[in-house]
């Protein structure tokens, strides 16, 4: 006989779980009590349950497994909501386990009762309320399977206190995780033949590579596909890392803050090959003028994404890797010289406006910080970003060569994501160097997790890009609201001193020549180090497609910036 609480831990062990990110409380106490009997599980005590969900998410994104977060009922469970929604939007497989009041008290507004299955219904793939010890094991098996299968995502399992306390038969040795279910596929020969004809006949094709490439481990297939047919690849924010940045066919990030040549290539393409991406409004600009000359082929595992935002000519449903594997043999070898040469010409024009070309004028630009960080780490670090301007600069200036090396909240754009997600990532990839890049605003949303990093003695590096503003919102106010900086100037603590208060290393860098030494010092230090980069306050992210504008109607990097900086130098 086993209690429901014991069964819970034995199932997690059966699923291969080694780390659980959580926070105890009354309704989950029986589970925490039973935890003492399972030393093979390492429980990480977070400082806020939102942190637990982001850690589970970061763990899943960095390592490719399922992340597990745990919380008590009521406020513990509701604190998880932001992290669950973040994982849902970015298809990250996490399992959240919450305690619930005893089944007899359900529906009575008992102390710390909240309808968390009701609350999380639209932001989970599915959720379960477990009221009997007998249901714990089958529910957890189904939860893990569902989180990983098809398009991954969060699943919540709410377990009443009495289900944790009561006992039933359970054979731990017989526990085996359920096999993944195959998603819906259509390997329709005609569709494939048409797709191949369209690709082989195209003169100006562009591949749009999304998160699905990483989730299906299709990196090699993507590369083979692109090289064989000489098709350039534009990346979504979450697709970054799915194809090496240094590869000549990699155009870089597309969309609102994509470089001009990327967006122009998409607008002028005669064929778009969308691989595991969902035509989010941040990558399409207005749909009315989106890629008007292009036929579209959508390779996607989730049928509900087909024709949702952009009507496509052919949909190849299924795992990106499997679909590409089927397509590659029939792909004609082409060099597409004219098209690639044309894109190169577009590039030349943009490159002169690049902030990287600015001489050191004594001003510290965030772009410089990220560029130097990329150089110092040889592009080999995992970078976990928060949300805002620094996130876009990271995507523009840190060149990612490896899959799963950029972890960022794309779909929900959750400020406060970076630090906890990085903690989770560190548990999944303990050998990897990890850098947090956060803004002064977002970092303050979850900086309490510095205590978690300290308690766990983690080796993390944190770069706070401190511009004294909620910078991305300030930028919109500058461009679209007549520079009325309503509620965006931001007072912050001395982040270096703050780190010291947690027993961590804190460094402040104010000029470009201090950047590399600070990065080196942080890297040498065992344990977590934080660098407070005091950067130019009113810098903006360019290019920018204003929301509602066409993808090719970008606000470009102002050339005067180059002149100003040059005259100052």
């Amino acid at each position, binding site marked *: 006989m086993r209690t429901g609480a014991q069964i819970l831990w034995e199932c997690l062990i059966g699923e291969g779980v080694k780390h659980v990110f959580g926070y105890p409380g009354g309704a989950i106490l029986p589970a925490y009590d039973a935890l003492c009997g399972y030393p093979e599980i390492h429980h990480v005590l977070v400082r806020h349950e939102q942190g637990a969900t982001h850690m589970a998410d970061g763990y899943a994104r960095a390592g490719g497994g399922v992340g597990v977060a745990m919380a008590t009922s009521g406020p513990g469970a509701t604190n998880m909501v932001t992290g669950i929604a973040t994982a849902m939007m970015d298809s990250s497989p996490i399992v959240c386990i919450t305690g619930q009041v005893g089944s007899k008290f359900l529906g009575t507004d008992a102390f710390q009762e909240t309808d968390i*299955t*009701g609350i999380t*219904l*639209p932001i989970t*793939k*599915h959720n379960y309320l477990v009221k009997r010890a*007998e*249901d714990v*094991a*089958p*529910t957890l*098996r*189904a939860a893990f*399977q*569902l989180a990983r*299968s*098809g398009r991954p995502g969060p699943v919540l399992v709410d377990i009443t206190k009495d289900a944790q306390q009561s006992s039933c038969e359970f054979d731990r040795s017989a526990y085996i995780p*359920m096999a993944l*279910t195959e*998603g*819906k596929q259509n390997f329709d020969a005609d569709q494939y033949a048409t797709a191949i004809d369209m690709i082989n006949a195209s003169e100006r094709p562009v591949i749009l590579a999304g998160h699905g490439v990483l989730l299906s481990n299709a990196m090699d297939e993507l590369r083979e596909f692109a090289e064989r047919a000489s098709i350039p690849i534009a990346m979504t924010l979450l697709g970054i890392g799915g194809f090496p940045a240094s590869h000549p066919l990699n155009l870089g990030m597309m969309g609102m803050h994509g470089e001009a040549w990327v967006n122009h290539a998409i607008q002028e393409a005669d064929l778009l090959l969308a691989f595991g991406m969902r035509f989010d409004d941040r990558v399409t600009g207005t749909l009315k003028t989106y890629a008007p000359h292009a036929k579209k082929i959508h390779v996607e595992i*989730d*049928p*509900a994404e*087909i*024709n*949702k935002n952009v*009507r496509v000519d052919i949909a190849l449903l299924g795992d990106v890797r499997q679909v590409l594997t089927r397509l590659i043999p029939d792909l004609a070898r082409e060099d597409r010289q004219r098209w690639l040469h044309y894109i190169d010409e577009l590039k030349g024009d943009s490159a002169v406006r690049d902030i990287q070309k600015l001489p050191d004028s004594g001003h510290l630009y965030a772009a410089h910080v990220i560029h130097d960080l990329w150089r110092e780490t040889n592009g080999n670090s995992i970078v976990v970003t928060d949300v805002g301007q620094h996130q876009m600069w990271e995507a523009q200036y840190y060149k990612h060569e490896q899959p799963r090396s950029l972890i960022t909240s794309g779909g929900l754009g959750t400020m406060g994501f970076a630090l906890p997600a990085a903690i989770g990532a560190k548990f999944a990839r303990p050998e990897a160097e990890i850098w947090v890049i956060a803004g002064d605003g977002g970092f303050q949303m979850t900086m309490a997790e510095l205590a978690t990093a300290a308690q766990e003695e983690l080796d993390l590096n944190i770069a706070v890009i401190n511009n004294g503003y909620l910078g991305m919102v300030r930028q919109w106010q500058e461009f679209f609201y007549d520079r009325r900086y309503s509620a965006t100037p931001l007072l912050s603590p001395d982040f270096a001193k703050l780190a010291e208060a947690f027993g961590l290393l804190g460094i402040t860098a104010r000029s470009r020549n201090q950047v590399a030494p600070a990065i080196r010092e942080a890297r040498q230090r065992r344990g977590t180090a934080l660098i407070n980069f005091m950067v130019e306050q009113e810098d903006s992210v360019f290019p920018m497609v204003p929301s509602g504008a066409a993808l090719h109607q970008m606000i470009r990097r102002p050339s005067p910036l180059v002149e100003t900086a040059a005259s100052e130098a």
Partner: protein
Amino acid sequence: MVRTFIVYVADHPGVLNRVSSLFRRRGYNIESLTVGHTHLPEISRMTVVVAIDAQGAPLVEANLYKLPEVLHVHDISSVPSLHRELVIVKVAASQDVRPEVMRVVEAFRARVLEVATESLVIEATGSEDVIDSLIEGVRPYGILEMTRTGRVAMTRGSAPVFAPGQVPPKGAAPFWNSGHLTVLRNCS
């Protein structure tokens, strides 16, 4: 344009909530939704009438399939099918107009459920058009109370939309494999 979907779901608490929540958050406009038991144990069947065009219909279906408790979805809008709706209407019918009301009842093959001194309760089944006409027929006498069930539908011919033993052709994980449910043991 309205389209009719037949949706088989596991008969779990909260399934209706999950389905209606999906329609709400995706902004699909439900014209009517009926749900009830089927002859299959622990499987319920919904008839959902949605205001959506033909392009949007596959998305409704794909989104429904993302709910693990949805077992089968069939868009019967372009399939020959039978549509029925039930109405119960309480009509003001004093003695002097009662014969006229009764003529309307007969014309529509409706039934009288209750005869009170000043009113009649009438029940009718039929397609929405027929029900609409019946209502217009009795409206001049004064409708005191009325309730309609919304559409229930079934395809014509002998092939069932979803049969025991049929493997549901769905994209989402087969939740019912988890073993703790007796749901669909007959069908999986």
